[in-house]
């Protein structure tokens, strides 16, 4: 049997999320030290197993592992024996046999981390699988939001996001970030509305606990946070949208649209951003944007995830 891992936000529940956010609070403070490193996972090895190119997520996990003093290994499909036809299962079993303690798995197909977890002894962390989930991004988003709200309120970060109204805008259908965020934000009590043309929303939101809207301008006055998703040019070919121009006109956070918004409305984006399409460059860099904070939070929550999965019980008690 494999160790516990992190495959879906659904596995965590509210308590699991809050526990990780608390851990991330302390690890965020580590980042502020002159030497941002703790010996918590010395001797443990974390492998990033990436079958899909991603600089940000991989570097974020590796930074997190290194700040915990874990050894890291990098496997990317472009440089590996995958090109020689080695199967996914052979590859991860080989890594497992080398004694890796955790594998962060990213793959263009939904469900690969879950399958890998059934094959290896190492703890498996979902680093983004197809259009399924990206749990650590959702944790980073929750961490970012509660920090931003605490800054605004002047107190300690709260353990929930009750009453917070979040619009997730754009290509929800093809977004693993959106699926994880819906679960995490919902678990913490936020109200979520998905906004986009029906072609870019999931065929069914049964059981999601969200509202659905098709007019961004109607929603914008009603929410506290706008979370924009990337729109990919290939959606045109598949006839999900007629043109990027029309998409931007209807669902992009353009400068004109941003000007009409209340000052306290927050803007988020998981990156990489396509400036000028789903978000205007100036808006992305404005004071209301939490994009940089999301990246920073990513390292802290990934430290929390790795620590929780790999630290021995006595270390967790002391940590």
């Amino acid at each position, binding site marked *: 049997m494999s160790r516990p891992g992190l495959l879906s936000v659904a596995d965590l529940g509210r308590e699991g999320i809050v526990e990780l956010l608390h851990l991330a609070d302390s690890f965020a403070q580590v980042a502020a030290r002159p030497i941002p490193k703790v010996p918590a996972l010395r001797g443990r090895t974390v492998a990033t197993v990436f079958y899909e190119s991603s600089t940000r997520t991989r570097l974020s996990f590796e930074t997190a592992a290194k700040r915990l003093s874990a050894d890291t290994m990098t496997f990317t499909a472009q440089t590996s024996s995958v090109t020689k036809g080695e*199967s*996914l*299962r052979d590859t991860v079993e080989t890594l497992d046999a080398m004694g890796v303690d955790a594998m962060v798995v990213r*793959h263009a*197909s*939904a*469900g*690969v981390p*879950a*399958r890998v977890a059934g094959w290896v002894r190492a703890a498996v962390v979902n680093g983004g*699988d*197809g*259009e*399924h*989930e990206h749990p650590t991004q959702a944790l980073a988003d929750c961490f970012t939001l509660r920090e931003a709200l605490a800054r605004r309120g002047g107190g300690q970060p709260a353990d929930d996001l009750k009453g917070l109204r979040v619009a997730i805008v754009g290509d929800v259908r093809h977004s*693993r970030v959106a*699926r994880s965020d819906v679960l995490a934000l919902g678990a913490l009590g936020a109200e979520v509305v998905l906004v986009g043309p029906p072609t870019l929303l*999931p*065929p*069914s*939101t*049964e*059981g*999601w606990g969200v509202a659905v809207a098709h007019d961004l301008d109607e929603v914008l006055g009603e929410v506290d946070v706008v979370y924009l998703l990337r729109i990919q040019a290939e959606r045109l070919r*598949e006839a999900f949208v007629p043109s990027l121009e029309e998409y931007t006109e209807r669902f992009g956070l353009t400068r004109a649209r941003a000007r009409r918004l209340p000052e306290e409305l927050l803007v988020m984006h998981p990156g990489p951003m396509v400036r000028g399409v789903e978000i205007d460059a100036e808006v992305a860099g404005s004071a209301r944007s939490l994009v940089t904070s999301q990246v920073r939070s990513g390292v802290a929550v990934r430290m929390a995830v790795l620590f929780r999965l790999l630290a021995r019980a006595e270390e967790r008690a002391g940590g």
Partner: protein
Amino acid sequence: MAEARLPTVVLRGGTVVGADRAERGDVLVEGGRIVAIGPGIEVPRGSSVLDAGGCLVGPGLVDLHAHLREPGHEEAETIETGSRAAALGGYSAVVAMANTDPPIDHPAAVRAVAELAKGALVEVAVAGAITKGRAGERLAPLAEMAALGVRIFSDDGRGVQHAGLMRRALEYARPLGVLLAQHCEDEDLVAGGVMHEGAWSSRLGLPGQPALAEESMLARDLDLVRLTGAPMHFLHLSTARSVELVRRARAEGLPVTAEATPHHLTLTDAEVAGFDPLYRVNPPLRPAADVAAVRAGLLDGTIDAVATDHAPHAPDTKELPFDQAPPGMIGLETALSVAYGALCLGPEDDVPGWLRAVAEPDAPSPRRSQAPPVPRLAGAVELFRLMSSRPAAISGLDARGGHGGPLAPGARGHLCVFDPGERWRVDPGAGASRSANTPFASRELVGRVRHVLVAGEPVVVGGEAQR
């Protein structure tokens, strides 16, 4: 097989399943044929006695839909291994689908496969492709293949996409006395979907294919049957609306027949939640309301037959990510047990938990069938009608080969002895199929095939293949 070497066999103490009733009795088989049926048959000297106590003794099963993979994918299955799996599953005959590599779309391919099938444990009827290369563009030489005995034509694995071509195929086939069988799947609507489009696909982030992808081609083809008057068979119906469309077409008197698979009777799209490609299949597993509607369709006679769609794939292909793995499940060795559990056992029976869960869906689905909500259960007669006599009649294996019963003196000795009392757990590694991609792995099934006679030869005795 030389009839001289055939043993005299007495199947003793079972319940003989006839065309309209089941009665206690023995069956004496001699020289490849049934010579006597009745209680307390005297055992002739030198005959072997097979215990059928507590068992149903019915005609050998007939599968309208098996992929035996030879030629082209012998790593997944061969006619030898596939027909052994069929025998162990209670079959005396199977229709081998045409999507081999190369496909069975010309007379030489028909002859080659028929030659390979000569030594098989069960009778293997060869299906031909409707179009050249199964490409859906030009007609395959239907008449030449029909002259070699091909009775069923299908591009199965794909549907014939173009309505105009399908019309021509039906018109051309009508005087040939053959049957065209459609795999209903509008590829434009499928649009890369790898599972049923609905709550589960949305949650899992897997591209879904709408039920409409099946239903719209079925609706189109029913109209083409009305237009051309040619008979047509519909493979693996899987949605409530498909069942309803066929129900109405039959009420109208259109010459259509249909089949459903054991997996669409028992498994839902919720199985995909673990991303195990064992559960990738076309048509995809559907929600519980569709499963219930397919069962109801079999019980009320809308759907004629249970057919396996036995689709072996080598193990490494089922270790691919879900969306890259080839669709298909094996089913020959489990079909009768699964169908028995799904169709013959009711709430008061001791049904394994996994079967009960599907039978009693907790959430009503918005896509409701017009079918009666609580179907009656099938008895032994209905079970063997769905798995033997109707598929034998549809495939022509009744007239040619004497499959499908009814069991009577003079009939060919194709017999399936099924013990409904035996419970067993499916071990995918233990089967005769060269592949192990069964969705019923580790599940408990009720009822197991004990003995099988094909043309009088005991090919399975005590659950063991004899060669």
